[in-house]
């Protein structure tokens, strides 16, 4: 069983649609160009799992991975 989730943004794929930031502001940060990276080490705090999956399924560039650890 998955113990915890981690999100990761592939910087080569991300084009700054900012969907992740809108749907899961706790899990993603944007740089000055509006491109995203995961907040901190990307570990998803308990209770935010749904938001992690939602961000992944709404990223038009398929740039977000949700890793089950």
């Amino acid at each position, binding site marked *: 069983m998955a113990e915890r989730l981690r999100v990761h943004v592939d910087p080569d794929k991300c*084009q700054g*649609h*900012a969907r992740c*930031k*809108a749907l899961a502001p706790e899990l993603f940060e944007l740089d000055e160009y509006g491109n995203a990276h995961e907040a901190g080490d990307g570990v998803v705090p308990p209770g935010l799992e749904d938001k992690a999956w939602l961000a992944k*399924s709404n*990223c*038009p560039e398929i740039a977000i991975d949700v890793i089950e650890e």
Partner: protein
Amino acid sequence: MSDATPPAAHPPVTDWVHDFDHTDPQWTEDPFPIWEELRAASPVVHTERFLGCYMPTTYEAVREIANDTEHFSSRRIIVRDVRPEVARNAAPPITSDPPEHKPAKQLLLPPFTPDAMKKLEPRMRAICNELIDGFIADGKVDAAARYAKYIPVRAIAHMLGIPESDSDLFINWIHMILELGIKDESKLLQAVQEMSAYFRTHIEERRSKPTDDLISYLMNARDKEGQPLEESHVLGSLRLLLIAGIDTTWSAIGSSLWHLAKTPGDRERLIAEPGLIPTAVEELLRAYSPVTMAREVVKETTISGCPVKAGNMVLLSFPAANRDPEMFSDADKVVIDRRENRHAAFGLGIHRCVGSNLARMEMQVALEEWLRRIPDFRLDPAGTVAWSQGTVRGPRQLPFLLGKAM
């Protein structure tokens, strides 16, 4: 402009699969069944019109092309009847290919981040309310002409630092470029020249009196070597921001209101649950995506198994991709609380719309303010809804009756 090509006649389409034409009145009126027919035939279809043009019909084929900058060039972004020489710095970065693309795009990104847009929100709310004040007492309104149209034009004018009162001038140029210009070269050239002259005057003014708007921002920008941008680049980007900023969002707001006018269930739900508006905006963007871009095939390749040959244009239809049932369940239905929505309304790949955060904010505010003040409205059966032609799809005439039905 006597040397320009006269407007071409387009015979009506009888065979959509082999002879499609996105300027045909039938397509303008209701493109959705046509896309379904094309998609059932092939992931990539071809027409001899427009000097040879492909159209990817599936999300996957659109994605492949959008991400393939080796075989597909962005130097021409509108499918037209003619292919004049490509002007340098036509409208960077949308007309730029790698490697010029990245620096040109990075220049424009910072003023359009979600945080930057948040600062603009109060001004947008004020604009929407001013517009509503202008017609709410009349009991009826053309919501495209008197509401949707002026929201984006005033927003971008505000950002560029040019008078919002010149809105009608800008709207006319956009119409000449994006609609009339597909078939009439002289209209396009005239609009581009007038626009450039207009911006040159503003650039001149700012030389003695710098401002904190986007025109000054571009004038002050420096490249990696510390050099200012060429004037043609500044002008090209200004033209792009004005052209891309207006018609697109006007269309998206118009289509959204059109949907809500004829779908009372969705309208009532958004009034009861305003928190759902951002999700609904994404779905309305998917279902009624306004923008179809173009590419030019510069090297022969294969897309979704279909060979494509150099020298042809590509009608890169993000709207058709967004209706692909392989990608979206119930793709032909508007599901305002759709949770999984990877729609491509703002494009895919490096040419993702720079203004997407602005457009989203405008749509959200425009719907919030409208629904707050005008919860009841419907299509006026005595009027006609009219749609734009070609590159950007949206209602240009949207007659509504306001208030509860008697």
